[in-house]
C-alpha cells in the first residue's frame, strides 16, 4: 500500500492553483440586456433607441466598444445614425468605423462585412439591408473583475428612402480585440455568444408614411422582386411563392406574369399573355420566377422609361389570378433607386 502523500500547507497550494487557473482563463461576458424603442415611427422621424449593456471580465485590458446596427440600406445609416454612451466607465460618443478598418479575426473583412458574414440579415426576408458600424471615441480601460454597466443611446432617422417599412432592426456589441470569437471560458449564465460579443434582434418595427411602397422585411410575401431597388434598365427577377397562402393558383402547374407598365410620357403598356415571354419557371416546390428586362419586356423606345409597374400572377387559362395580399388589387412596383 502506497503511503498517503502529505503536502505541507495543502490548502494554500490549492488556493494558489485556483488563482493561477483564474488568471490563465479569462471569464468574460458582454450582453445587451435590454433594448428600448418605440413600436413605430413615421418616415423622417428621429427614433430614440436605448441599449442597456452589461460587461465584465476577470482580466484587465483596454478596448474600444464596437456597435453595429442592422437597418435597410435605403435609410442611409452612415448619414442618419448617431450614438452616445453613458456608463460606469464614463460618458462619450460613438463615431463611424472607417470601412478601411479590418475587423480582428475577420479574415480580412472590414466590420460591416464581418457582421454581414456572421449575423446575416437577422431573419429579415428581403436582402436589402446593411450593418452600420460605429466605435466608441476612446478605449475603455477595465480592471480584473470590473462590473461595467451602461447604456448606449442611438438616434436613428428612419425612412430616408421615403418608403414605409416593416423591419427587424438588430444590434451587435463587441470589442476591437476579440471580434466574434469565443474561447469557451464563458461566465456562468452567459453563452458563447455573450462572451466577447452579443447580438440582439428586435421585434418588427413599423415605419409609416412616405410616398413609396411598403417594404415588408418581416413577413413572407406572395411575390418579391430582386434586386429590391432597380430601374427599367436592370434585369429584374419576380418570384411568386405559392406556399405563403392558399390562393386561386394553388395547384396550378403553370403560372404567368400579367403586367402593366407605365412610362414617363404617361403611356400604359399591358403585357398579359400566356406565352413563353411571361411564363414563370418553377424553381422549387410552389416557387416560380421570371427574370425580365423591363425596357424590352414592355417594348419601349429609347426616349421612354418605365417608371412603375403593376402586376398579377395568372394561370395558363388566364382566368385565375393572384394579386397583392391575395386580393383583387395588383402588386405594385416603382422603378427607382432610393
Amino acid at each position, binding site marked *: 500500500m502506497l503511503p498517503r502523500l502529505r503536502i505541507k500547507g495543502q490548502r494554500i497550494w490549492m488556493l494558489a492553483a485556483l488563482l493561477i487557473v483564474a488568471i490563465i482563463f479569462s471569464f468574460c461576458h458582454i450582453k445587451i440586456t435590454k433594448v428600448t424603442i418605440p413600436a413605430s415611427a413615421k418616415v423622417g422621424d428621429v427614433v430614440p433607441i436605448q441599449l442597456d449593456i452589461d460587461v465584465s471580465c476577470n482580466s484587465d485590458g483596454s478596448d474600444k466598444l464596437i456597435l453595429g446596427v442592422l437597418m435597410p440600406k435605403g435609410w442611409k445609416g452612415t448619414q442618419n445614425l448617431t450614438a452616445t454612451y453613458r456608463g460606469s466607465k464614463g460618458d462619450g460618443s460613438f463615431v463611424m468605423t472607417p470601412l478601411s478598418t479590418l475587423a480582428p479575426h475577420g479574415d480580412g473583412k472590414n466590420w460591416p462585412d464581418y457582421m454581414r458574414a456572421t449575423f446575416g440579415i437577422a431573419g429579415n426576408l428581403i436582402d436589402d439591408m446593411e450593418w452600420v458600424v460605429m466605435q466608441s471615441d476612446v478605449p475603455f480601460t477595465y480592471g480584473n473583475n470590473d462590473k461595467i454597466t451602461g447604456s448606449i443611446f442611438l438616434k436613428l432617422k428612419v425612412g430616408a428612402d421615403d418608403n414605409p417599412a416593416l423591419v427587424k432592426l438588430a444590434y451587435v456589441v463587441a470589442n476591437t480585440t476579440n471580434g466574434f470569437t469565443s474561447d469557451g471560458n464563458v461566465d456562468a449564465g452567459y453563452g458563447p455568444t455573450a462572451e466577447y460579443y452579443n447580438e440582439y434582434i428586435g421585434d418588427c418595427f413599423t415605419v409609416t408614411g412616405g410616398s413609396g411602397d411598403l417594404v415588408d422585411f418581416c413577413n413572407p410575401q406572395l411575390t418579391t422582386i430582386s434586386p429590391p431597388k432597380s*430601374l427599367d434598365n*436592370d*434585369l429584374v427577377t419576380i418570384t411568386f411563392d405559392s406556399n405563403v397562402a392558399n390562393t386561386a393558383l394553388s395547384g396550378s402547374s403553370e403560372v404567368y406574369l400579367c403586367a402593366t407598365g407605365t412610362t414617363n410620357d404617361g403611356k400604359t403598356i399591358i403585357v398579359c399573355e400566356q406565352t413563353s415571354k411571361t411564363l414563370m419557371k418553377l424553381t422549387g416546390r410552389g416557387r416560380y420566377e421570371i427574370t425580365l428586362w423591363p425596357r424590352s419586356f414592355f417594348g419601349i423606345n429609347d426616349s421612354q422609361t418605365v417608371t412603375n409597374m403593376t402586376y398579377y400572377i395568372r394561370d395558363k387559362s388566364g382566368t385565375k389570378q393572384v394579386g397583392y395580399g391575395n386580393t383583387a388589387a395588383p402588386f405594385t412596383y416603382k422603378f427607382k433607386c432610393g
Partner: protein
Amino acid sequence: MNRFILFIAACICFLASCKVEEIAPVAEAPKNLTGRWKIVKATRNGTDITNVFDFTQFRLRFDSTGNYMLENRLPFLVNANGKYALDDPEYPFKLTLTPEGGSAVTTSLNYPTSAGVRLLNLSFVPGCELNAYIYTLSRDN
C-alpha cells in the same frame, strides 16, 4: 609534349569560338479583341443569373478599325454602336466604348484565359448604382 601543346591550342580555339549573344526582349503581342463575342456567364450583384435569362442572342463585335457593334441588345455598358479603345494595346486594363452620339464609358478590362479559351470580363452598372453586373464573354466561332 607536342600533344600537350596541340591540346592547349585546341582548347584555346574552342573557347575563342564562343561569343556573347545578345537576346532582344520579345515584345508583348497587342491584345486583339476583334471578332464576335457572346455571353457565357452573367452575374448580378455576385449572383449567377446566366440560366434565368436568355443571354444567348446577344453579340458584341469588335472590328479592326476601332468600331464595335451590338446585336440583340441587353442591359450593357452602352446601348448603341460606336468606337472602342484600349488604354494600352499590349497591357490593357481599361476598355472605353464611345457610342454614336453619346458619351464615352470606360470599364476595367479583365482578359483571362480559361481552358485555352480567351475570355473577356466586363463589369458595369446599367441601372441603379447598387446593382453591379459582370458579363463573361468568349469568342463566337
